[in-house]
């Protein structure tokens, strides 16, 4: 939650420059999932990547981790992490970094845990491989980790299989695996989407505590602006594979400048909003896009569209620690 103390002058921990991912299929035009994304993460910072389905947020995280399938996608740009370009590393060098420096938590814990291996073994695997522990020490450490993530009766739980745990507990186990080697960066891809609200609150609280305690930087990928509002220091809003707005969270929610961000925040029913009022919906769906090359992708759905929006790609403007990609942004005072 508080970025101040953890920030140091060594430059960003993760520096993504102009990352693009293009899926090619024979006989069909390429699909550009990620279209030149640049952002960075400071040590200990919590950065959010928000967008709707198909905006490229998950592909971004998979590209950073080098987990995209080998053939098919063409990845361009640079991902600098601790001095190395992750995209240029060999498979074995990358495998050394994954798990040790980079941890990842996925959306669906049941399909990302191995169903025929006890969770304890899945944690010790990382410990023996990356931290060179022997079996016994690793097991003790695994119990400590399970206890740390709030699993009751950890000594018994190390022998449990994923199917014997509830959804919330599986997600906790997955977080324990990701944190086993004390990574400097944790990437969480929709970690609470499959969970109930009360369990979601538990997991978010856990992530908040862990970030504060271990100084791990967290990249939070989600579609839920509510989750972002309570957790992230800086927020990147993605639309159709590009970042359309980036700002510190208080500023972003108080004065959203991009019409998409503005519309997204407005269209969410809130517990403290007036139910008599009609929700200001964004018309159309995420498929109604224009290509970024010649226009603003959001133009067909945009209430503030002007002639230029369908003819010229809006450039990136950075002013007062806010990044914005729009020809006709919402005035800073209206919000």
């Amino acid at each position, binding site marked *: 939650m508080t970025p101040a103390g953890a920030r140091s002058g060594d430059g960003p921990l993760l520096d993504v420059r102009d990352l693009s991912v293009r899926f090619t299929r024979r006989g069909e035009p390429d699909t550009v999932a990620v279209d030149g994304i640049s952002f960075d993460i400071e040590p200990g910072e919590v950065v959010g990547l928000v967008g709707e389905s198909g905006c490229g947020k998950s592909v971004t995280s998979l590209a950073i981790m080098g987990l995209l399938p080998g053939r098919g996608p063409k990845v361009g740009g640079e991902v600098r992490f601790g001095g190395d370009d992750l995209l240029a590393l060999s498979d074995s060098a990358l495998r050394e970094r994954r798990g040790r420096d980079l941890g990842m938590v996925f959306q669906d814990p049941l399909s990302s845990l191995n169903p025929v291996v006890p969770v304890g073994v899945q944690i010790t695997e990382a410990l023996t491989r990356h931290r060179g522990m022997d079996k016994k020490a690793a097991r003790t450490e695994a119990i400590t980790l399970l206890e740390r993530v709030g699993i009751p009766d950890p000594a018994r739980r190390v022998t449990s299989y994923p199917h014997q745990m509830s959804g919330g507990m599986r997600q906790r186990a997955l977080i324990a695996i990701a944190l086993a080697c004390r990574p400097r960066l944790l990437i969480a891809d929709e970690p609470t989407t499959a969970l109930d609200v009360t369990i979601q609150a538990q997991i978010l609280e856990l992530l908040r505590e862990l970030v504060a305690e271990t100084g791990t930087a967290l990249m939070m990928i989600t*579609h*839920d602006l509510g989750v*972002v509002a309570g957790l992230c220091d800086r927020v990147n809003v993605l639309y159709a594979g590009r970042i359309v707005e980036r700002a510190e969270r208080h500023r972003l929610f108080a004065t959203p400048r991009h019409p998409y961000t503005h519309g997204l925040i407005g269209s969410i029913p809130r517990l403290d909003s007036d*139910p008599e009022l*009609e929700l*200001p919906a964004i018309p159309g*769906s995420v498929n109604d896009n224009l290509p970024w090359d010649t226009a603003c992708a959001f133009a067909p759905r945009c209430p503030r569209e002007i002639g230029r929006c369908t003819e010229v790609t809006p450039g990136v403007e950075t002013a007062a620690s806010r990044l914005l990609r729009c020809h006709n942004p919402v005035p800073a005072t209206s919000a």
Partner: protein
Amino acid sequence: MTSTENATTVTDTDLLLEVDDLAVHFPITSGVLFERTVGHVRAVDGVSLRVHRGETYGLVGESGCGKSTLGRAILRLVDPTSGSVLFDGTDVATLKGEPLRRMRRRFQMVFQDPLSSLDPRQSVESLLTEGLRAHGLSRGGEADRARLTELMDAVGLPSGALRRYPHEFSGGQRQRIGIARALCVEPDLIVADEPVSALDVSVQAQVLNLLSRLQRELGLTYLVIAHDLAVVRHVSDRVGVMYLGGIVEEAPAGDLYSDPLHPYTRALLSAVPVPDPQVEDDRERILLTGDLPSPAAPPSGCRFHTRCPWRQADRCDTERPQLRVPEGAGPEHRVACHHAEAIRDGRITRHEVAPEAVDQSSGTGPAAPEQGGSLTEFLGR
């Protein structure tokens, strides 16, 4: 939707749906050749609720609390174990055969996943006319076509959509087709089970607005089932909160959110992320520990006592509280908690709850074994 003063001045003739002590228990069987019943999953266990004509009743709860099963039992998509469902004066729970089929025209359902609830090989026109024919509402090709065009217009789709197939539409458009299908037989009650949870945020608002516009224009009655409290609050006149097969609190939407009385409702409300950093930073969070207990072996007494931060030693774990109007609350506000007033007035304070290990072999689904052992232990018994 309809204003709340409507709901306070209702008489019994306005009652469209009256559910009384409804229970749905699914048997857990064991053995291959001779299936013995070894226990029951009490998905819905003693629920009573009333829905008035023209109002929207919202049901919220977490997964496994029985809200979907309750909705399905009301529509007779599952058979209730006991209790009655009076729909406009007729007990639907005991109807059979042709009278039940004819009754079905009057209550329709909108499902969560519009793609899997629409036949992929039927065009939209054929999907919609099927219902018309089945209920004898078809008035010949021309008249039907005019009616369908009108329907498409009502749900905000072009009439050209009639000739297309479900896969050609986006998620939001498919949900509009699902709504059109429910509307085409002119029902009185629509049960919408998670109508927007499969949709993108920007599209959710469109569908919610459509539902409320249709209610205003057609005088529909809705039972909206959802896990998202903000969505339910937005659309509902009255809201019931379910926990482990029972309703724990019921109140007009505004009251429930401004003055939640049941500890579970309080925890649920404090857990909903609000897209406002200021609110998020300042709010008090009531974190529940542990998971939902198995509905196959619900806790004794108050079902929430295993996770309740306000649990008292006296009767929380022995006596199941009934819904009652607490002192100082509106006449429509009912809560099933022994200590609701004391908690509100601060006479009881929160304490730590140690999470109890809840074993499960398949989430909280119907296969969860009785007495909460692991699957291997269970098979060995």
